[in-house]
């Protein structure tokens, strides 16, 4: 079963963030608690955890990319 890891709600007025780092590579094994993507918004750095345990199947974002709340960041299988 594949799961999309999406950019979660970060607050009432925040609609997007910029990817400053991807902490995993395709094929990596992750636990639900592991941070997978690092983003910055409003000079705040925010780490998104995997949310699911599994293998990183696909990374959908790259450093410098702007992403919106709800956008898929990667796929875990």
């Amino acid at each position: 079963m594949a799961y999309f890891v999406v950019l979660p709600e970060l607050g009432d007025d925040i609609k997007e963030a910029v990817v400053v780092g991807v902490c995993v590579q395709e094929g990596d094994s992750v636990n639900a608690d592991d941070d997978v993507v690092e983003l910055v918004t409003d000079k705040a750095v925010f780490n998104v955890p995997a949310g699911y345990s599994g293998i990183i199947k696909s990374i959908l974002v790259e450093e410098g990319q702007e992403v919106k709340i709800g956008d898929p960041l990667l796929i875990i299988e």
Partner: protein
Amino acid sequence: VTLHNPGQVVVYPILDLRHWKKDIRFYLEKLEQVAIDLLKDFDIVANRLSDKRGLWVGQKKIVSIGIGIKKWITFHGMSINVNNDLKLFSLINPCGLNIEMTSIQALTSQDINLSTVKQRIQKRFEKNFLGE
């Protein structure tokens, strides 16, 4: 690039935002309010600018803010220029902005005791985050 030197008070709260609100801007605004209230104690009116983080007196920056959040636990925080040597900032380009810095001492021309500032920050922090 940023700079920390003696005479700054660096506030580095480690809070679980799930006890307040899972909202980055909510937290930033609370943190800014702590510093705004503190500066008011010294008759300094500091403002937020819509396009730049930190707190400003006119066009000069007095408080720098940069926070991190992991699993809704906060890290990093803010640094308040109290009586630090501002000349050092000319060696860097703070936060990538070509800006001038100021401090409580520079604005009030008073000798400011750091421990007094720290006590006041604690009170302002409690008021803003605990409602006390």
